[in-house]
């Protein structure tokens, strides 16, 4: 939660700097974000590769545990596809791309704004932050009425870190490894799925 507030704060800071033209012109005309994105992807990779949890988790792989991230992806895509059919502002491809963030708002928003448009990037940012907030707030409800995998599924990529404490509190620590596994798989897949879809 604290992380998402800081990130939103930087976004708003940039927004204000843009609206009131607080920065010199050449800064606005040059697009530095591509290089920053390259750097970020390398750093994110290091974070995933060195994650001690991910090393432990690889040893636990079996058919059942692989079903969890697979069902998160399938369910999310079914949901956003229905959404795409019901309105005419976001088409199927755009909706699938936004869904492919799985709550990983920082990376998905930046990637989508780079590949598609700033408009879609902002929607990805707000949508995936909302996914994290919904998970933080509704995990007790989800766990009670939709089974122990529901909060993991709702959390998506965040189930490995930011929403993990609340998830394990309500579904039990024996499911923690599944939560971390699903979150890590989705975190790695986010950039690949966005690249395939867009």
């Amino acid at each position, binding site marked *: 939660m604290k992380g998402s507030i800081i990130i939103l704060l930087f976004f708003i800071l940039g927004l204000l700097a843009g609206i009131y033209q607080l920065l010199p012109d050449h800064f606005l005309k040059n697009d*530095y974000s591509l290089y920053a994105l390259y750097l970020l992807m390398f750093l994110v990779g290091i974070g995933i*590769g060195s994650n001690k949890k991910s090393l432990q988790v690889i040893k636990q792989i079996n058919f059942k545990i692989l079903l969890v991230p697979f069902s998160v992806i399938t369910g*999310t895509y079914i949901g956003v596809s229905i959404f795409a059919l019901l309105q005419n502002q976001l088409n199927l491809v755009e909706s699938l791309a936004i869904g492919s963030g799985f709550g990983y708002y920082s990376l998905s928003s930046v990637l989508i704004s780079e590949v598609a448009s700033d408009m879609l990037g902002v929607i990805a940012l707000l949508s995936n932050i909302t996914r994290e907030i919904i998970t933080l707030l509704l995990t007790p409800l989800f766990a009670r009425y939709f089974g122990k995998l529901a909060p993991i599924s709702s959390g998506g990529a965040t189930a490995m870190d930011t929403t993990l404490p609340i998830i394990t509190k309500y579904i039990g620590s024996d499911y923690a490894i599944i939560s971390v596994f699903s979150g890590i798989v989705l975190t790695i897949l986010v950039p690949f799925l966005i690249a395939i879809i867009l």
Partner: protein
Amino acid sequence: MIPVLLLMTLGIIVGWIFHHQTIFLQWISKFTNWAIYLLLFLLGLSVGTNKEILSNFDNIGYLSIAITLFAVAGSILTAWITYHLFFKKNGGKNER
């Protein structure tokens, strides 16, 4: 997009090689946060100069929340099915 994916894959390999270097990794983690802050600031900056988005911001907000409700509902539905078919004790026949 391809350089993005290659750089992440390269990073995963580098991270795996250095996964015992605690101080290096702490530094990487801080650096990652600042890279994210910078990118979100830059995204804000280009949105702030985009009149089309600014004049449409409340609509964008509603769209974002609506699509998320569908994404979460869909994934909870499949999670519920997966749980009852494969995870719930006494549920699946493969448990016995």
